[in-house]
């Protein structure tokens, strides 16, 4: 017994360490927090009260990280908001196009505008559909709002559209209300002009302009635009009719290609007559 006590006294550090470690392991294994019961709840309540009482003290590190997190969240939300807004606009456009596709009697192919070229005021657009989808040169391109242009070239998967606002554009048009015919050409920027309309003809601002049956390129009765100005020319008997296209070319994204080509026989005949007149005129000169 004496030896045991002597051993314990001699190695009291190791013995006490062993004893404490055993107690710690016992606590970890069997120490049920619930057994502390009310004491634990008093401690938690007291700590909670203290934390609440001193919660007014600002924590610069926490504020900094919170600020950074909020900035990141703000950026994400802004980005999400922009995407949602974009989706809403796109959704509205697609709905209109879908409705148009249901309503129209023409066989159409929908396509996305994948590129726009504005060089030397010649406006072109590239579509993501081509010959493989049945698109051919000479087909009409339109949106739910009206005529957008004409296919002037088509590769296997892409096609090029000459937009209405192009210096080479010429459309046989008609004032819908008064049935007055004329040729519509591009003037500048986003406007077109109908020339050589006699002053006595009934044209008013706000009149709708549609494609005429005289057109050998576009199907008839398709909306082109609206009369926005009527300019009288004092030096002649005619006046200029300013027409704003119904299609908004700056936000052109989805279009339809009308899978109809002008009557080849008619085009050939008109072309032959035109060439005959040209040669007769040159002979007379």
């Amino acid at each position, binding site marked *: 017994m004496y030896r045991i006590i002597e051993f314990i006294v001699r190695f009291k550090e190791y013995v006490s360490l062993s004893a404490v470690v055993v107690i710690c392991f016992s606590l970890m294994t069997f*120490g049920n927090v619930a057994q502390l019961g009310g004491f*634990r709840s008093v401690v938690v309540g007291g700590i909670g009260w203290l934390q609440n009482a001193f919660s007014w003290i600002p924590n610069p590190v926490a504020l900094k990280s919170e600020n950074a997190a909020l900035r990141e969240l703000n950026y994400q939300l802004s980005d999400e908001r922009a995407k949602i807004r974009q989706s809403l606009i796109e959704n509205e456009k697609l709905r209109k196009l879908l409705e148009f596709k249901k309503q129209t009697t023409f066989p159409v192919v929908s396509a996305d505008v994948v590129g726009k070229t504005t060089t030397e005021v010649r406006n072109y657009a590239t579509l993501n559909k081509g010959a493989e989808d049945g698109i051919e040169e000479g087909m009409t391109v339109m949106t739910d709002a009206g005529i957008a242009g004409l296919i002037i070239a088509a590769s296997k998967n892409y096609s090029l559209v000459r937009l209405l606002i192009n210096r080479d554009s010429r459309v046989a048009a008609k004032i819908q209300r008064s049935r007055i015919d004329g040729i519509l050409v591009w003037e500048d920027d986003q406007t077109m002009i109908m020339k050589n309309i006699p002053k006595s003809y009934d044209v008013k601002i706000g009149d709708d302009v549609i494609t005429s049956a005289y057109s050998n390129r576009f199907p008839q009765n398709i909306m082109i635009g609206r009369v926005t100005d009527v300019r009288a020319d004092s030096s002649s008997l005619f006046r200029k009719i300013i027409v704003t296209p119904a299609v908004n070319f700056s936000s052109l994204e989805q279009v339809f290609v009308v899978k109809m080509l002008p009557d080849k026989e008619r085009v050939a005949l008109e072309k032959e007559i035109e060439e005959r007149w040209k040669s007769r005129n040159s002979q007379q000169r």
Partner: protein
Amino acid sequence: MPQFQEKSLFETWPALRYVIYAIIALILSVLHVVFLNLISVSSITPDLLLVLCVWISITEGQFIGIFAGFGCGLLFDVLSADVLGTNALAKTLAAFVAGYFFKAKFTDQTIGSYKFIVAVFVCSMVHNLTYFFFYVRPTEISFSGFFLKYGIASTLYTSVSAVFPMLIKAQKLTVRH
């Protein structure tokens, strides 16, 4: 005529030291739980209780240090709502290791020098190794990765915080000399 010798309060009641240690431990525990998040860096805080345990071990020796570590750890387990025994075990082992830095009659010199920082660093490493081992055991977290991320950072932060008591002690020693 017998010479009257004035005794200090600690000499009159030697056990008062332990009461003071207990009060400091209680205050530090509350400070740790309530205020230490104010100086946390990436959720890492210095372990002030461990610094106290090392201090006690170096001042009082390994035997007292073991019980101080156990008491401080258990107190912190209760206050921080941690698993009972984990902090107690970690701090007991840390205090035991700190006991090897104990040199009777040279305790003030040890605390007032870089040796105290070295002791805190070594003990903190032992403490964090033990604590995080039991902390990650019920989870699927890799111990090595977790220790490298939090254990080392906590050790360094605790060692840095030990500079203040060391400087105070060093200044007192300078004034005394």
